[in-house]
């Protein structure tokens, strides 16, 4: 068992545990924005770690594995950002309703008043 296989197996275990924690976050969190933050960040890290671990276990596959990691790294934040923007425009329910946290509504009001 070489050093590359040990690092790859460790990355696979860490990534799968992060995927499970992301799914547990979207099950337990009280609010759609908290669920977005938990689900998207944790599952992005978990998927990237798992796929990189497979690339270290089989070193001939490293090129296509890096392409999959690149696509996940740009496609997952785009969909998360579009979903958060849509839910904010629909006045989604916020659990921590506070003036300091919801800074995007002030910018939106300023844009609407300038028009």
């Amino acid at each position, binding site marked *: 068992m070489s050093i590359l*296989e040990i690092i790859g*197996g460790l990355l*696979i*275990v860490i*990534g*799968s*545990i992060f*995927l*499970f924690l*992301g*799914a*547990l976050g*979207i*099950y337990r969190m009280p609010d*759609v924005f908290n*669920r*977005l933050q938990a*689900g*998207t960040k944790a*599952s*992005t890290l*978990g*998927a990237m770690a*798992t*796929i990189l671990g*497979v690339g270290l*276990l*089989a070193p*001939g*596959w490293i090129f*296509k*594995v890096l*392409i*999959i990691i690149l*696509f*996940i790294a740009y*496609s*997952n934040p*785009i*969909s*998360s950002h*579009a*979903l958060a*923007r*849509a*839910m904010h*425009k*629909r006045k*989604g*329910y916020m659990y921590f309703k506070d003036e300091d946290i919801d800074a995007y509504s002030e910018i939106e009001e300023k844009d609407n008043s300038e028009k």
Partner: protein
Amino acid sequence: MDYIIYFSLTVMTLALILAAVRFYKGPSAGDRTLALDTMTTIGVSSIVLLAYLFDRYIYLDVALVYGVLGFIGVIVIARYLEKAL
């Protein structure tokens, strides 16, 4: 080394079940769309693990297509919810 991948596949199956429960219970449309997005990410990594387990290089293409096309449906649903499609 196979037992590590069996453990990871079991954990990913539990994560899929938790996301499916959130899809069933979710009060708004954003929760259900988020459950679809998370399930797509978990599905991509489990397909890569199955490709290593079967030792077939061609199975990575399925994960590649999912990584390219998986976010388009979520973006279309989000633009529809924003009433800007």
